[in-house]
């Protein structure tokens, strides 16, 4: 019985990993929109990490996050890898803190927004360190925060919708 559970878990993490990587690749194809911060993406792969953080384990969620970072590094270069990892790790850590507890004080939309905001803050800090210019906080910060709210709202709502189905699949 225990072996069967492990097999199921491996399969689940495989599917989630494929989903996260596939979604983040699809997002990288989105062209730059006027008015939106360049390189901003909906962060749909966050759904996979948020689900893993809430239903599987902290290690699994971080594993997928790091996998995503390595994938970004292979396909889009070293800077993209650093950006993906810094944002991803901060947002996954936040998802673990918010979703692992027995009773959460936040709804799905709140968790989605907090994760997206943390993702963008992590990336902004990395961008500042990489460029050595802290004025980026004022130049990009407000736009990134607004965008994070929008995408966090979307990913949180999607997570709420797919959660029952995913729960059935993973139990």
């Amino acid at each position, binding site marked *: 019985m225990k072996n069967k559970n492990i097999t199921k878990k491996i399969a689940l993490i495989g599917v989630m990993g494929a989903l996260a990587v596939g979604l983040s690749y699809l997002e990288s194809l989105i062209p730059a929109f006027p008015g939106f911060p360049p390189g901003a993406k909906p962060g749909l792969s966050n759904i996979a990490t948020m689900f893993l953080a809430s239903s599987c384990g902290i290690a699994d969620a971080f594993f997928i996050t790091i996998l995503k970072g390595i994938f970004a590094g292979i396909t889009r270069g070293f*800077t993209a890898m650093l950006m993906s990892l810094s944002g991803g790790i901060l947002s996954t850590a936040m998802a673990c803190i918010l979703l692992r507890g027995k009773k959460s004080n936040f709804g799905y939309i709140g968790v989605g927004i907090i994760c997206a905001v943390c993702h963008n803050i992590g990336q902004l800090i990395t961008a500042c360190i990489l460029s050595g*210019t802290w004025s980026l906080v004022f*130049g990009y910060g407000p736009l990134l925060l607004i965008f994070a709210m929008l995408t966090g709202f979307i990913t949180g709502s999607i997570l709420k919708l797919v959660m029952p189905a995913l729960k059935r699949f993973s139990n």
Partner: protein
Amino acid sequence: MKLLKKNDILVISAVLILCLVLLIPSFKKSDRLIATVTVDGVQTYVIDLSSVEKAYSFDTNTTPKAEITVEKNAIYFSYADCPDKLCVNTGKLTKNGQTAACLPAKVVVSLKSAKSDFDVLTY
């Protein structure tokens, strides 16, 4: 777990307030537009965009290559040798507070407004 809880609304308002606070510097209005180009954390070029008469381009001498074009009241990355081209896709910067960055080349262009008695600086 519900979709939206009371705390979620608190989070949304907190983020909105933070947004407005960060926007304060760019509300300042003035008649002159100054572009600063920072390369690897060092302020390398300061260009008064209001006094540019003829458009020109220059190379930042970085690896990967990045080329910046200056026009009257506008500045933008016209070419970059990096894979993502985020800086080029940012488009023209024309307003106070706008920023474009090329992280692989460590070049940041940001716009500030200045009072009209600002010394005219060109590179």
